[in-house]
């Protein structure tokens, strides 16, 4: 019988590690660009969720005596709409954009703490899923995105404390924001260290791109504002479960303590949501005006001023609670003061585009739309700083109009400007320009049709958070109009989603520098290699990539910095 010997040969191909598989690459990545993309995709997913919630709200309010939702579900939907849009869309979206762009803009290879960066992302994802999973338990938060205690704690009956929200709805909220706070602190620390320690040679603080500046200020705001929310949520959980009563006056607590703690986070939070948008617009406008930003120093330092002032205005959310007159005067003044650095920015943006060779590509349209919409939101914000006027419209739809002009007309327009501007960097392809323009005009019309009538409804006395209304109050037509506007915005988002998928599959190749841009992120391949720059660039002015492309007219030769 013939026998043969099989000789084992050493394997030439080693088995793939988990981190090298497709799934493993995403689960284990510490690359700031991949993490940035994951942040943005996750944030956009939650934007769609929050948008669907908004459509439910508007459908319920389209006609008087609406019965689309029951009152409890309506409370849950508007609470989750606000919570989702603020904590799960705008904040993670800016963190994602910052993650992707900031290291490239400053000529760094990655964020300072790559694993902490990954941890921050995963916490956002799981925190978001945790919050949204509350619907599965029929226990979605229902006390508003601000969760006012003692309404979320207990009511008093004799000497007993009767839980005002006995189910676990508000526990989901308190734990959810605690989770998301961990992510925000991790991200903010990472940005601060990255920006201070990993800038390319020659990139002094006063040569940093303005988006980097605003990310830095935002990071400091997060670090100083979030502890207040964390403390407030912790105390609320103690009140709800361990019998303490920090917020209940009948048990020697302070019923206004929550509002002070919440809004001393909540108003800096508004600037946390809008300062990165200022940074984006300050990058886009100069490129599409073919001019350097006008008044760089003022634009940068006005952001710092806004950051400081944002900690001094929180009680303008509380004028109606009965603050002392001196406190009202102080907070009205500080709120009005914050309009000054904001106006400085707007005038500088206008001066930047004045006399420029304007190119109305989609990023530019969204940036200009931002300026116009944010201006409206800023002006009606100043109106709300006037105490007697605030008394009249507090907790009315006027306030809803204000915050949506700031956060949708402002932050969301800037986010789309950024997506259209940096999509070629991330994918190497251009988003379709015509679809982009259709989306912009639909959004501009939709935003104004939805939110402008809210001013009038507020003046007519329609309260916010109202479940439904009687048909004889004179609010019918305006509410119907707003609902139509909300669906126009939804159509705009559908156009974007189609554009995104189509461009990703068959988009026009962008080349390395589709906008003839100024800053360092374009001074590498699109999309960049994992290490960003093969050689770290050296910076001599605020527009290093412009300098490289135009050595004869480089900024450092012709301008004094």
């Amino acid at each position: 019988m013939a026998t043969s010997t099989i000789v084992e040969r050493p394997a030439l191909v080693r088995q793939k590690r988990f981190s090298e598989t497709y799934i493993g690459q995403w689960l284990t990545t510490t690359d700031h660009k991949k993490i940035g993309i994951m942040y943005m995709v996750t944030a956009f997913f939650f934007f769609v969720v929050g948008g669907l919630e908004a459509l439910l709200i508007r459908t319920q309010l389209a006609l008087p005596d609406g019965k689309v939702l029951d009152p409890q579900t309506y409370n849950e939907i508007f609470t989750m709409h606000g919570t989702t849009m603020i904590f799960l869309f705008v904040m993670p979206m800016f963190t994602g954009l910052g993650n992707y762009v900031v290291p490239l803009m400053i000529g760094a290879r990655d964020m300072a703490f790559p694993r902490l960066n990954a941890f921050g992302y995963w916490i956002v994802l799981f925190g978001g899923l945790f919050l949204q999973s509350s619907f599965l338990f029929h226990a979605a938060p229902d006390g508003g995105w601000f969760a006012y205690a003692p309404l979320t704690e207990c009511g008093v009956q004799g000497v007993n404390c009767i839980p005002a929200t006995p189910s676990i709805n508000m526990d989901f909220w308190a734990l959810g924001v605690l989770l998301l706070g961990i992510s925000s602190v991790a991200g903010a620390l990472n940005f601060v260290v990255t920006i201070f320690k990993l800038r390319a040679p020659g990139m002094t603080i006063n040569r940093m791109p303005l988006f980097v500046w605003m990310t830095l200020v935002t990071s400091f705001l997060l670090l100083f504002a979030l502890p207040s929310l964390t403390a407030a949520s912790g105390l609320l959980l103690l009140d709800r479960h361990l019998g303490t009563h920090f917020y209940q006056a009948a048990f020697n607590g302070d019923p206004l303590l929550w509002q002070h703690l919440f809004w001393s986070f909540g108003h800096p939070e508004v600037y946390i949501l809008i300062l990165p948008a200022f940074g984006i617009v300050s990058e886009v406008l100069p490129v599409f005006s073919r001019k350097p930003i006008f008044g760089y120093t003022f634009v940068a330092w006005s952001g710092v001023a806004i950051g400081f002032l944002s900690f001094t205005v929180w009680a303008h959310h509380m004028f109606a609670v009965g603050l002392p007159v001196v406190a009202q005067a102080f907070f009205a003044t500080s709120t009005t003061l914050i309009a000054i650095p904001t106006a400085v920015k707007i005038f500088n943006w206008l001066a930047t585009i004045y006399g420029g060779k304007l190119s109305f590509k989609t990023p530019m349209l969204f940036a200009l739309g931002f300026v116009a919409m944010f201006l409206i939101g800023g002006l009606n914000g100043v109106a709300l700083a006037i105490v007697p006027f605030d008394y009249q419209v507090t907790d009315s739809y006027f306030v809803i109009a204000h915050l949506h002009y700031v956060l949708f007309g402002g932050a969301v327009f800037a986010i789309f400007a950024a997506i259209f501007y940096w999509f070629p960097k991330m994918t190497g392809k251009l988003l379709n320009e015509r679809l982009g323009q259709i989306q912009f005009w639909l959004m501009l019309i939709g935003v104004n049709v939805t939110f402008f009538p809210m001013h009038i409804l507020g003046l007519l006395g329609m309260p916010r958070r109202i479940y439904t209304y009687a048909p004889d109050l004179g609010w019918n037509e305006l509410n119907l109009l707003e609902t139509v506007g909300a669906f126009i915005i939804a159509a705009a988002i559908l156009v974007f989603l189609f554009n995104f998928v189509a461009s990703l599959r068959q988009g026009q190749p962008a080349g390395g520098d589709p906008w003839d841009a100024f800053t360092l992120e374009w001074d590498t391949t699109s999309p960049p290699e994992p290490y960003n720059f093969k050689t770290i660039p050296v910076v001599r002015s605020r527009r290093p990539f412009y300098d490289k492309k135009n050595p004869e007219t480089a900024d450092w030769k012709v301008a004094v910095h």
Partner: protein
Amino acid sequence: MINEEEQKDRPPIEGEGLQRQGEGRKRSGNPGSAETQEKSDEATVVRGQQPRPEAEEGASEQSQGPQGPQVPQGPQVRPSRARTPRGPHASLWPFVLALAIALACLGVVTHPAVLVIGALLIVVAVVGWGLERY
């Protein structure tokens, strides 16, 4: 932190290539006055205080200036193969830790058993993260 961890693999900054390659020669025992000069040049650029004019007009990756990258003045050294830079190391522990914390929170509002699983997983993730070696 990335800058410490990646120090070994960090490729040259613009115009720094020859100095860093010269570093290898330094390590192989070629000290001298040129080395001192090299060292001070490199330190200046890495710290980013005052970029050298020669390096500033050098091109990086995508496009180059009209005259191409200029070689900084310095000792004549033999060119060597540049190391390919690489990104930070992958790790599963951030994912596991985040999942564990979310699970623990879910346990707080649902069932103590879930809380215990989450807490145990947190311990595992923290230890795993701490002991991870590259």
